[in-house]
């Protein structure tokens, strides 16, 4: 008795799910991909330009890379503060989230958002609320790679 009622419920839920999928607007994947490709590409091109500039100033490749990251993070933080980055992100999606600038945006946006709850329980506690997972799994992967290097290197 119970199981047939459960089954009926399952069927109803599935029927409804099908109806929802039929009706809900489709994500414009092609448009989103083009936007993400263009904006992501532009951010990377900008990074290359900055890196070439630093290299031309005589920095080593490694140092030029670090300096480029610093500049890009600064720019993203600035544009987040000015309220521009979220407008860009709305169109660019992954194109502006995946590069290092997206990481800066996630941290600055959280810091701005939670400033009103104070510097300890607001900014301090919540600043990595969005970027946290990237850090955690970034660290985890680096440990794994480190171990692989120790064992096989």
């Amino acid at each position: 008795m119970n199981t047939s009622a459960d089954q009926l419920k399952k069927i109803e839920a599935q029927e409804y799910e099908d109806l929802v999928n039929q009706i809900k607007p489709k994500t414009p994947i092609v448009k989103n991909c083009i936007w993400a490709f263009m904006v992501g590409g532009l951010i990377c091109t900008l990074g290359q330009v900055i890196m070439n500039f630093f290299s031309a100033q005589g920095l080593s490749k490694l140092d030029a890379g670090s300096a480029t990251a610093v500049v890009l993070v600064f720019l993203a933080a600035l544009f987040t503060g000015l309220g521009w980055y979220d407008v860009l992100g709305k169109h660019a999606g992954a194109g502006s989230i995946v590069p290092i600038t997206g990481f800066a945006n996630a941290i600055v946006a959280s810091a701005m958002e939670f400033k009103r709850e104070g510097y300890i329980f607001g900014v301090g506690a919540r600043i990595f609320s969005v970027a946290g997972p990237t850090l955690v799994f970034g660290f985890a992967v680096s440990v794994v790679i480190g171990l692989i290097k120790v064992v096989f290197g």
Partner: protein
Amino acid sequence: MVSHKKSGLQTIKFENPPVLTAWATIVGPKEGEGPWRSDFDWVLGDYEFGEKTWEMAESKLLRETVKLALSKKNYQPQDIELMVSGDLLNQITSSSFAARELQIPFLGMYGACSTMAEALLTAAMAIDGGYFERVVAAVSSHHYTAERQFRFPTEQGTQRSMSSQWTVTGAGAVVLEKGIYGGPRVTCATIGRIVDLGQKDANNMGSAMAPAAADTIKMHLSDTNRPSDYYDLIVTGDLGKVGSALVKQLFVKYGIVPEPNYSDCGVLMFNDTQDVHAGGSGCGCSAAMLCGPLLKKMMQGKIERLLLVATGALMSPTTSFQGESIPGIAHAVALENL
């Protein structure tokens, strides 16, 4: 024994239908850019409303809306015996902070976006039950307080899903009184049950709530033995474009044919050009539409019988992250010019 004030399974009817004697609505800037600007009492110029935080801005929004409604009848807060109010925030702080200033005896409500109907029917019961003669029902929502509680930091560069809705910044307040005055009356109400068809997408709440709306409308019509064209307008709270398309499909399934007198506050609230994707949402959506254009049309006699079916998605960010489905609810309140 079934109470003589109850009709059918879920519907209550009011013996002496309480009258809506005054109402007010204040909305945010974006809502003011929509099609109903002139029907709202006040369109705010910004989202802060002179406060330091959005939370306090929302509370002020609610408080000022209540005051504005009272002022239309020259009432002071102490003239009101009970305030029934709710909002979307954790621990419904917008309401309790507003009640702290107003010093009206206060009952807090949480029905997510269905709270306007829940507050209205509770206030009407308090009056028709003979306990109170003058009650105010009010709700509020604020786009940015809701965003930060339910979604992402506001400056985060995220891409909103096409089925997502835009939380309305707005508050609505209604003064209900024992029926000796003229004006629209609350004649009956249907208390909804939770309907959950397993929808889990928090970015598509219209889909989660549509079955509850259809269920409540179906129960209301069968409890009251009214045909769907009894009402000049059946309006759901905030199903949005996706949810109202779904509810129409469910109407067909249930054999209800409310079109062309069916609409949805979430669809009506904004223009298509305002980039809100599937439409408006939040307690303030149905409240602002009710206390703005809809009651105005009732006063003008363009709508004589209105069924407001406010819809709520009763999930929290925690339950969503834990993978639980979204319980939907809808309460129906019948407003009639008698």
